[in-house]
């Protein structure tokens, strides 16, 4: 058992999976906290679903799949932000329509373009263990960019989230900051697809911050602890996927949920040990 575990953790594809999963968890902590604070989880879902349409369009136009996913996520994020500024439309209904129509359209287009074989399941539920060199480079690149931008604008992002009007009077460019934050979320979702898949991406962004909420007194504590919860979920999720022979993506999400439940019902569980 120990031997097989050692072997497991020194295998290339497992190391790739760990590197990809942990680096994304580190930025998903703070970024996901903003999604929770700003009640944008449905927004994240819509972006994730639109990513599948991006894959389909990428196949048809014969372009780099990762680039076409990034392009479609950024495009949808931009469109949604513009629509959101028009208060006459119901954001909730609009997101619902866009999320499911883009998911359905993506699947239909993929089915029609059957000259190319596509592993639909890998995109829907993730395929962390099939991550290659190029995937890993994309993930590391995007995580680094997202982390730098988050660090740079951190105080502004928190300020516009707490009270956008006070922030505006104090000199923050609220519209621009909102757009930057949304684009960061879009970028992160676009490269996370391989890890847990279109259907589970938002859970990786939302569950760790939710788990960290009861352990935090400041936004910064919540963000950092969410990163830790996410990283632990990736490691334990990988181990249990190997041990119980279950799919990796859902396994990571299940672990994160168990951690959330633990802290939700026993918020003192860590303190009592100290």
């Amino acid at each position, binding site marked *: 058992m120990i031997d097989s575990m050692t072997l497991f953790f020194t295998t290339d594809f497992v190391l790739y999976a760990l590197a990809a999963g942990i680096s994304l968890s580190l930025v998903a902590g703070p970024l996901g906290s903003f999604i929770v*604070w700003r009640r944008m989880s449905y927004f994240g879902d819509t972006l994730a679903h639109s990513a599948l349409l991006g894959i389909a369009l990428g196949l048809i136009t014969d372009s780099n799949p990762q680039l076409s996913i990034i392009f479609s996520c950024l495009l949808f994020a931009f469109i949604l932000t513009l629509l959101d500024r028009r208060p006459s439309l119901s954001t909730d209904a609009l997101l619902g329509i866009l999320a499911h129509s883009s998911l359905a359209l993506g699947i239909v287009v993929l089915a029609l373009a059957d000259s190319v074989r596509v592993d639909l399941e890998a995109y829907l539920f993730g395929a962390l263990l099939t991550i290659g060199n190029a995937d890993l480079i994309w993930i590391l690149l995007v995580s680094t960019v997202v982390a730098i931008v988050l660090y740079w604008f951190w105080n502004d992002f928190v300020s516009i989230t*707490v009270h956008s*009007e006070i*922030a505006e009077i104090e000199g923050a460019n609220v519209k621009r900051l909102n757009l930057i934050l949304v684009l960061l979320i879009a970028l992160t979702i676009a490269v996370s697809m391989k890890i847990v898949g279109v259907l589970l991406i938002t859970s990786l962004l939302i569950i760790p*911050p939710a788990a960290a909420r009861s352990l935090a007194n*400041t936004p910064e*504590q919540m963000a950092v602890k969410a990163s830790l919860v996410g990283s632990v979920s990736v490691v334990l999720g990988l181990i249990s996927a190997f041990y119980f022979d279950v799919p990796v993506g859902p396994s990571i999400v299940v672990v994160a949920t168990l951690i959330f439940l633990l802290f939700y019902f026993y918020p003192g569980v860590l303190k009592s040990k100290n």
Partner: protein
Amino acid sequence: MESSDNDSKSALESSGEFSSGVLLAARSINKEFADKKILENISLTIEEGQIVTLIGPNGAGKTTLVRIVLGLLQPDSGAIYHRPALRIGYMPQKVQVEPTLPLTVSRFLQLANRHDRELLGNTLNGLKISHLQDHQLTSISGGELQRVLLARALLRKPELLILDEPAQGVDLGGQAELYRLISDISDSQGCGVLMISHDLHLVMSSTDEVICLNHHVCCHGKPEHVSNDPAYLNLFGASASGDLAVYTHHHDHEHGIGGGVKEHHHD
């Protein structure tokens, strides 16, 4: 839209209409929402060290006017002039923090000014809220929250304070104290104040100019003048003047430190 706004601003600026003591001025502001006139031809001026109070019934357009003055909302017509690079401290009517967002009082205040620890300490002491620093913003009382919001506005070292119902959610005794505090701040820091209130009798002693608003300016001037103006009495009912009498009487005694009455004689 922005360029025309800038044009009108610079037109006002270059007209030389404003003396150097003017912090901010609004001229002929009009605003409609869904074909309903909210503000009609409103003008106001705020000078250094001056406290201007907007009063009026609910739905009179007070908050809309403040939002236009702040630049958060564009007027349909009219112009806002302000001193170049004017530093404004703003206290909104309502701050509701998401329960999912953990936020201590001191972290909230650092959003305004991260670096000046000394100013933070002094401001907290001045408002008597130092003990609240590590409390969650969601766990403090209404009166304490108003002081925290005032502190955040002050951390910008404002030349102009704009306060939307600063005494909201504060008990009656606390309200009078809060208005006195605002008056003291204006005196000691020399900043102008524009605030919204709906009870004139509470702000009487600490305001220089009252603007009585009900979509248009009903009357304006010194508080003593406004309180006797027929337009004001019409808007707030005759009972308002009865209340006022209580506050404009001359005291014929003072209370000593122990609460005992010290007689003193008029004339």
